[in-house]
């Protein structure tokens, strides 16, 4: 257990020593903040129209500003996570540090969990940072805290699943670039599966709809936590990690 934490912290430190993590956070934050501001602006305009026409009820603030921002953040992470996860194992293999790690008394499972934990810590920081813009709304309005928290949880779980897929891709190759392309491809495919998954409701359609990342994330954004969505992300993460573990076990045989 201690070894896992050690690896995780080493990984996290490595990320923040290089400019990559900082740049990534800056870009992610800048774009999300921009979209958030745009959302707030359009909300104000819509509210004005709403009042002009004397419509009763209100415009849901969280639904119109925070949820879209978090939704877009997931798309951005879909682009950025492969860059972050591509090096996790492939880089070690390329730089020749892998044999040292592989021969250490730590099991492949331990190594994978450590690396993944490091990634999760980074994601926690990123999600925490992205919570800042919505938090400013509390000074001026009355956002729905439950929905906001559900959205943050969803974003974290989505990004965690992205990371696990990236880790799997990274374990499958020695070239970080290839790992990035593969994980990006897989993630994008998973993201857009729902485009076909909403047709007539046959078994194939239902399966497509189930595998679609977007369908599951959407529930979190609307403030609904479903055990099915939770397990989807946990299972996807588990699948990525187990794949990576099987890969490393197979590597050992060759070595």
């Amino acid at each position, binding site marked *: 257990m201690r070894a896992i934490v050690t690896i995780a912290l080493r990984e996290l430190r490595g990320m*923040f020593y290089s400019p990559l993590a900082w740049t990534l956070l*800056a870009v992610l934050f800048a774009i999300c903040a921009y979209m958030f501001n745009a959302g*707030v602006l359009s909300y104000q305009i819509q509210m004005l129209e709403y009042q002009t026409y004397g419509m009763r009820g209100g415009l849901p603030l969280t639904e119109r500003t925070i949820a879209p921002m978090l939704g877009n953040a997931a798309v951005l992470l879909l682009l950025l996570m492969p860059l972050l996860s591509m090096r996790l194992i492939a880089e070690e293999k390329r730089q020749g540090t892998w044999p040292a790690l592989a021969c250490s008394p730590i099991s492949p499972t331990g190594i994978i969990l450590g690396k993944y934990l490091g990634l999760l810590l980074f994601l926690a920081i990123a999600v925490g940072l992205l919570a800042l813009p919505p938090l400013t709304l509390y000074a001026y309005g009355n956002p*729905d805290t439950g929905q906001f928290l559900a959205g943050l949880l969803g974003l974290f779980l989505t990004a965690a699943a992205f990371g696990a897929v990236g880790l799997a891709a990274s374990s499958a190759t020695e070239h970080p670039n290839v790992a990035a392309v593969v994980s990006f491809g897989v993630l994008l495919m998973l993201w857009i599966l729902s485009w076909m998954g909403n047709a007539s409701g046959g078994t194939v359609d239902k399966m497509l709809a189930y595998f679609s990342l977007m369908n599951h994330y959407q529930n979190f954004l609307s403030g609904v936590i479903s*055990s099915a969505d939770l397990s989807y992300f946990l*299972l996807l993460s588990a699948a990525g990690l187990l794949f990576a573990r099987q890969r490393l076990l197979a590597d050992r*045989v060759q070595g």
Partner: protein
Amino acid sequence: MKMDRSTRLNIRSQNFVMGLILTILLALAAYASHRYQVRWDWTKGGRHTLAEQSVKAVKAFPEGLTMTVYIQERGDRRQQIQDLMEKYQVINPSMTIRYVDPDLDPAAARQAEVAVYGTVILRAGEKTEKITEASEEAVTNGLIRLSKGSAKTIRFVSGHGEHPLDETPDGGGGKDRFAYTQAKALLKGEGYGVEGINLAEAEKVPENTSVIVLAGPRKPLLDIERQRLKTWLDAGGRLLVMQGPGSDAGLEAMLKEHGVTFLKGVTLDPAAQMIGGSASTPLISRYTVQHPITKGMSAATIFPDSGGIDLETPPADSKEQRIRLLEGAARGWLETGDLASGQVEFNPEQDRKGPIVIGVAVESGKQRLVVTANSNFLADAYVGALGNADLFLNMARWLAEDENFIAIKPKEVQDGGLNLPGADAVLLFWGLVVLIPVLLVGIGATIWLKRRRR
């Protein structure tokens, strides 16, 4: 450990089997988690939670239930309906949802007699319920009706030139515009049995009769028929009398007991003319009285060739409730003169000034009575217009005591409003979009430079 070929193969196959087992386990877990799910609604006021009645209604079908939604594949409503249906499905996982695009599969839509997008057919075993509006309120009420499975029968009196229930070609071989074939289909869609009855032949009204409808008879009923009808009504029967200017049921005495008198003349409504109709087709667009029949009605209804009704207020000692259900032609009048002359105008001495009452509802004890001064609004030529079909179904439901309609209000928005002054918005923009990212890059660059210098 010495690795020869066979151990290598052995370990590899072990790994492969392990991978296979893991995949199967993951798939099983995914299926189980999808099949049996629990939901928590974190929103303020539980905006995504079904009302208690809806939960109860859908749980009443443990052995399964099919909802077939007729909706176009693309469009916003599709997603809304899908979200709603899934909420029901989460509560009752044995429920299946099917989607049919009526544009892509017109044959299926025709078979199910789907007229509007968003029609949902609820099916449990042999029983079906059709709802034309996919809101929580409508679906839940549909489910309640479905679970009750009322085998209630509505009987239409025949034998006096009433509107025919089935299609009978007129002399020229065309369809009878005044037939009630669609009205019959509407009732059947709601799960009612629809049959004719000849009161002169039947010794008395059959036991299982929920409602008797008298739709625009041309000739008065025979004495014996009147008597049978009155006996039934007085014993707590439920009757719908529709009688336009050209028809006469001969029920004056019986209706008079309930304060209902038909007035002579044809209702003329200049307002209907303004929206492109004919003045003799009064249009009712506002339902002012609070009554189960008109509750929730938003679409206007039209009554081509309509008479008027005079409703007396009940005597003080009576428990009878008399309600002016439909009132129209606020700026019109009841024309007693000859319409064919082409010269019609309001004649204060003979004509009654609007508003004219077109429909009334009377209730006392178990007894329920609806009288309209028009029977054409239900005819095939007009029943599809605006809210006519809804009005009729509401009448039928109320008469058949199926009106304990459960009202479910849409959840209110709890987090509306934002009071963000312009200066603060500018500050937020610069702070969030520029300052923080620059800070982040700055810190990153500093660390990197420091480490490089070392």
